[in-house]
């Protein structure tokens, strides 16, 4: 009987949090205070915030798909591979062609060719940009969604400018343009911008 009461207590929620003692008695001030309720202040920054220096401009009169994937490669730290790709490949291509080139390079990649919206959501929440078909006969780099609910695109015809589109509108358009997207697995994704707990309001 006691065993069952004990089991019931365990199952029904008499949880206990054990705080491990640290090596020193003194609190380590380098450990930032817990602020589990605080939210990231960078609400308009996409999850794959690609530096301008890594954005490949269109080249050879129309290599938008190649330029888009080279931006992805640079963001993930594959600078030599991106440079080699730039040197060897150009001209018209599709996401399928990019996949074939990735395979030749031996780079693991993930793609959708049927407008899988969850694929873009996964790219965004794991901080991976993707080369996508967008606009008529064009490809751009999808940099992810912002906390404000916008999709951010980097167009290789004007790489310095970031394009923000409301998520629903973007998804609808993307499906209309064929719903193709390809990204690279592996690599080193940089961290998000650092932020700390907001200072307590003392007033």
């Amino acid at each position, binding site marked *: 009987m006691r065993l069952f009461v004990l089991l019931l207590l365990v199952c029904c929620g008499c949880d206990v949090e054990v705080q491990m003692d640290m090596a020193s008695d003194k609190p380590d001030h380098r450990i930032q205070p817990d602020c589990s309720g605080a939210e990231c202040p960078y609400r308009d920054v996409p*999850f794959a915030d690609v530096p301008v220096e890594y954005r490949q401009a269109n080249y050879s009169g129309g290599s938008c798909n190649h330029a888009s994937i080279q931006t992805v490669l640079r963001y993930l730290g594959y600078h030599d*591979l991106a440079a*080699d790709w730039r040197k060897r490949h150009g001209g018209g291509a599709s996401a399928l062609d990019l996949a074939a080139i990735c395979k030749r390079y031996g780079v693991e990649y993930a793609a959708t060719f049927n407008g899988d919206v969850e694929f873009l959501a996964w790219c965004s929440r794991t901080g991976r940009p993707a080369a996508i078909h967008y606009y008529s006969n064009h490809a751009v780099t999808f940099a992810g969604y912002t906390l404000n609910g916008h999709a951010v695109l980097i167009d290789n015809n004007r790489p310095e400018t970031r394009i923000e589109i409301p998520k629903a509108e973007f998804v609808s358009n993307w499906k209309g343009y064929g719903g193709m997207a390809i990204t690279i697995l592996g690599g080193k994704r940089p961290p998000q911008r650092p932020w*700390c707990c907001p200072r307590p309001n003392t007033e």
Partner: protein
Amino acid sequence: MNARVTVMVGFGLLAIAAGALLFTEYSPTQANTLPTQVVSQPVFAIESAELPEDGQRYCVSILVHDDWRQRRDESRIVSWWEVHPYLRSVAGQTTYDVYPMSGPRYQRYFAAAIREADLPVVLVQDGSGKVHWKANRTDMPESAEDMAASVGGLFKSRPIYLLPWRRPKPCPQPSPTPEPSPQPTPNDVPIFEPVAEPEPVEEPKDSTMPIIAGLLILGGVIGMIGGIVGGVKSRIGN
């Protein structure tokens, strides 16, 4: 006596229900990754694959001057993370990198928040960018051991939940390992050579949960049978 039997059967049913719930929640077949499509052939050969859900991975960033190799204090800190077993282990389980001040990444992500006078800076961030541990030039640990103890304190100071299913996820708890898997350097990838892609770091699966669930169910069944048998015996005895 009847009341006792009822209580035992009731507890038994509750334990079985709890065990079943637990088993459902922590079934080993539960996938933690998103099934989607990875293409292995260019046309119409689509395979189903699991994509790594590694967006919440912690990041360790060391921010340094451009000439950090010539600066004794900064090169020493970087070497700690490459040599000390615990720090290497943490680096291997997080996204670890060194960011020189004039690099595009530093300028894009850190320049607005970190002053040059504070360099070197070591940051431990979660997937959202929230800083959980930070040391700069003025309060940098004086040895690799101190650094390891302090960074380890970040993880040790997290509450330990007696009930594993109440533990917040993800809950990275780096532990020293003799040979941590090194973080691949993308630029080391040979051109036109097959590349061994790094295994995505998976959250440790709680393999004890199905066992606990099974024990709960077993205990419930035994308790119920015991209660019923006891009740029947007492009636026969009467």
